[in-house]
């Protein structure tokens, strides 16, 4: 079956973080939603990336719940010149923006702030689910 472009986008971001040495899993259950991409570093700091081809507004909505289980959250998209309003929306949501550039590289276009909404319980639950997936 042909993969949707969004699935391909997730795979590219996943490969990028794997190559940097992080633990990575896609489509991990998190508080009854699915996190597109979960990236964990050696200190167990968690980054969740919601991948979208378009519709940043929807990604911002979806990412709210993930903030309860992550140290940082990003929206991951193919590169395009963002409008000021889009940048503000992402910054106001305390999220960052990752771009897949036309040359295939990944660029952190907006840095994601360190979050403090998370709970130990939700983080551990996400890590358990990630192990279930075989990160």
């Amino acid at each position, binding site marked *: 079956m042909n993969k949707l472009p969004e699935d391909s986008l997730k795979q590219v971001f996943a490969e990028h973080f794997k190559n940097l040495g992080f633990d990575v899993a896609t489509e991990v*259950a998190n508080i*009854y*939603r699915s996190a597109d991409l979960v990236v964990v570093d050696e200190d167990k700091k968690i980054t969740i990336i919601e991948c979208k081809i378009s519709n940043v507004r929807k990604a911002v909505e979806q990412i*709210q719940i993930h903030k309860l289980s992550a140290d940082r959250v990003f929206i991951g998209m193919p590169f395009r010149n963002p409008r000021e309003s889009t940048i503000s929306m992402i910054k106001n949501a305390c999220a960052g923006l990752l771009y897949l550039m036309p040359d295939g590289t990944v660029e952190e276009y907006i840095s994601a702030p360190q979050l403090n909404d998370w709970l130990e319980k939700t983080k551990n639950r996400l890590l358990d689910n990630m192990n279930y997936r075989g990160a």
Partner: protein
Amino acid sequence: MMDHIYYYATHAEQRYFLGPTMRDQYNKIGINGNIVSYTPSGVASFLATANKPFYIDPQTHIFQFSTQHLKKNNDPKKKFKPSIEILASDRLKGPFSSVVTEDKPLLPSVFYEGDEIDLEKVDIICRGCLEFQKNTIIEEINEEDIEFLDTEENLTPQFLIAPYFYISSKNSPKWLDLTSICYSRTKELENNFPIYLSLVIAKDIVFDAREKERVIEKIRNIKPDGILLWVDDLEEESLSVDKVQKYIQFLKSLKTNTGIVINTHSGYLSILFGHPEVGGLFDGISHGINYGESRSVVPVGGGIPMARFYFYSVHSRLRWGDALQIVQKNNWWGRRETYAKNVCSCKQCHDLIAQSNTVEDAFFYYGRSQTVERKSRSGSRIELEYPTSEAKQAAANHYLFNKTREINSIQNFTLAEIFDQLTDSYNKTAPILGDDQVAHLNNWRIGVEREL
């Protein structure tokens, strides 16, 4: 005091109706005709133990639609569900049994010869419907269960329901005529019980002035003893201010033409409509054990099961994760008193806190899940969480306790106090969940305020 009716859908739900604390949460039971038909002795035994007033919904409207909805898994190629087959063939009889034998939905033409209604057929279905409701339970009670009864009257319904059909602006106007004639004939046939009209209608009957008048005119003529109202797929949270006002106007019209109005699928707005200062527009509300604030007349698929938490101040069954966001971002964990004041102090929450290490542990009990893997539409693997059975059970208990609290609230608070509570709740939750998810709190308040 408003009637608080639990709808009994499966025998597995008995634990929510019985037992010393649970049985104090409601005062009446509604039962579907198909479960009575299929397992009359089981229902009789349950009712003998519950010892509460009850009524039986003969569900005559279900035979109007494509027969696939009456079959296992909604599959047109499969057999009819046995409970439906018995309800149609052995209990209601007449034209209802031909739906099963011929595998065709009931059409208005069955009851008409040209434009003239066939009163003989009306008489058959009215008698069948009465007989079914009056006698099925009492005939099936066994000797042991009789010992639990104060009198055998405890096994007769509190009121009876005339045959009825779904009415919309789209379907044949003959269904309304037929429903009205069935009511009048049933009333002639039965003198010992109150006869209720089951008014199952599309939303446009409530919100369109001309459609509303078409239905109200009939009700004005028959003046039913009581009305069980079911507005198809009406989600109270989705109503605009204008629609809240129109809903109130519709109920006022009903109320002037009958003694009692009960909403069979209702949320908090219906309870608020029952407030004495709003005019006591509903005399009772009914809901299922963990669903039923709104329901489609034609059954729809269930979707992926999701842990939900009834958030009292929002008066809505939120996704557990959304409820978690509200509690976390308002920092309502710490002390038990803070949680009790802002989130919930029901017996279920109290028991969970007592047996847990922290308030947080107790709240997370409602979100317990098991993980399963599925394929997405694109074919990739996707992981989903399903609530565990103990989480679902705790959430159901919590929901039922909160419904009782809501019903008590209309006795304990003035309308002005309730309006303040709605505003306060909006102010605390909208900055977290967004206006869209809690806008109903403002819409309900403004809509009711404008119709006072």
